[in-house]
């Protein structure tokens, strides 16, 4: 059980790196979808008595939404915007991978000083460092990438990370709240997709680095 959970978490770490390194947008979308799908398997490993019906439902919904719905929305935005891959991000790809290595080291070091309170049974000891590393990677993606689509991908990485944290610590949220969170994220991605469509129509590009007319 633990070994399988560890493999999932390590896969998440690897996808963080590959996301930082990829320049092609379609690859990025597929990677964040793969990250979400693999994470969707995590609830099934939670709990000492094996997964219950509620967790099955959560896992199934997560798989469908993150594996099918989000990529579909993002690919549609991609097609509307007519870009294939982006020009160099603000920090080059090689330097982003190096930053990713730094994030990895920092997260592991930092979380080793934060012991979990008594009574916690995390799925694996890797949950906290992986969560922190993914959080920082998501932020890095949002900050250094120029295209609006990559910012949305970074936001999805953030959501994946919070999911790692929530489920990985065997936390039992009521079903309604989890569905609510998922619904909110879904609508958020939908709204972002619509906004991106408008941006590409208005500006003929989706380079948010150039959206800087409003300033003091």
């Amino acid at each position: 059980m633990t070994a399988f959970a560890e493999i999932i978490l390590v896969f998440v770490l690897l996808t963080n790196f590959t996301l930082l390194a990829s320049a092609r947008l379609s690859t990025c979308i597929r990677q964040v979808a793969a990250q979400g799908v693999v994470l969707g398997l995590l609830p099934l490993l939670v709990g000492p008595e094996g997964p219950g019906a509620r967790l099955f439902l959560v896992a199934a919904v997560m798989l469908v939404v993150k594996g099918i719905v989000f990529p579909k929305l993002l690919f549609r935005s991609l097609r509307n915007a007519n870009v294939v891959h982006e020009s160099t991000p603000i920090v080059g790809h090689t330097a982003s991978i190096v930053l990713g290595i730094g994030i990895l080291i920092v997260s592991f070091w930092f979380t080793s000083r934060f012991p979990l309170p008594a009574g916690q049974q995390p799925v694996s000891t890797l949950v906290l460092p992986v969560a922190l590393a993914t959080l920082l990677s998501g932020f890095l993606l949002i900050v250094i990438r120029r295209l609006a689509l990559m910012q949305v991908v970074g936001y999805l990485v953030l959501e994946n990370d919070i999911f790692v944290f929530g489920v990985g610590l065997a936390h039992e949220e009521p079903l309604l709240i989890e569905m609510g969170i998922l619904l909110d994220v879904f609508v958020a991605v939908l709204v972002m997709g619509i906004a991106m469509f408008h941006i590409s129509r208005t500006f003929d590009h989706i380079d948010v680095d150039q959206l800087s007319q409003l300033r003091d």
Partner: protein
Amino acid sequence: MNFIPLILALGIAPFMVGLINRVKAIFGGRQGQPLLQPYYDIWKLLHKGAVYSRTTSWVFRAGPIVTLAGVLVATALMPLGSCPSLISFSGDLILFAYLLALGRFFTVAAALDTGSPFEGMGASREVFFSTLAEPALLLGLAAVAKKAIGTPLISLTEIHQHVTPELWAGSGLILVFVAIAFLLVYLAENSRIPVDDPNTHLELTMIHEVMVLDHSGPDFAFILYGAALKLWVLGALIVGMVVPNTGYMVIDLATSLVGMFVLAVLVGVIESVMGRLRLLRVSQLLVGATALSVLALVLEYRG
């Protein structure tokens, strides 16, 4: 008994090169060179005369010799299977890495000595990629050493002796990452696709071949033999990580030899199915290898 890895290396190393070439030929639908062709090439070159440019200095003549010497001593450090190496002491993996670096330095120096722009270009690329590959090598070794024994600074022989089936069962993930990282370093150091194309004849696309463009005769023989030895020695490193040792020397030797041949075939396959990456992507690939090594090390410290 400690001579066995060294003797095997000295004898079989050029055969590995021939094997890789044969695999590539098969993929290309050709008959290909004879398997022992590298031996014939070295023999032929040793009997030829060398031509030295008037603009070169002693560095140019010393380059191939020092490189070969460095790789020879590194080969003496590398064990095979559970058979210990000729020279082994605590911390010899660092000496190993830096012997190879010494060889590389003199190759680069000899290349720069000619004053030709092509060789300078190749030299700068080679040094850049080696810089990126080195952390991957050392950190990966540290990870496996820590896992095996507990301290990072031990001898290669001990590391290899500790790669047992139990180790694989306990922390297979870490070994897989280290193995992949080492494979990438291997491809980079030996100038194989996807890092460098050994069969290209366009100087602008070369990295390693262009540095040795002006050597001839026995010098070139030394270079070829040194490259073959480097291929063997780094391959032995990977095989040592991957193939578990049971403790019986003969069996381990046999399995390691088989592993080396499998590695050669694997490299041949990789070279045939992949194209060479853009130079920009090569640096990302190598930094990715470093990331894998760091990941293995960090997972190891996590427990």
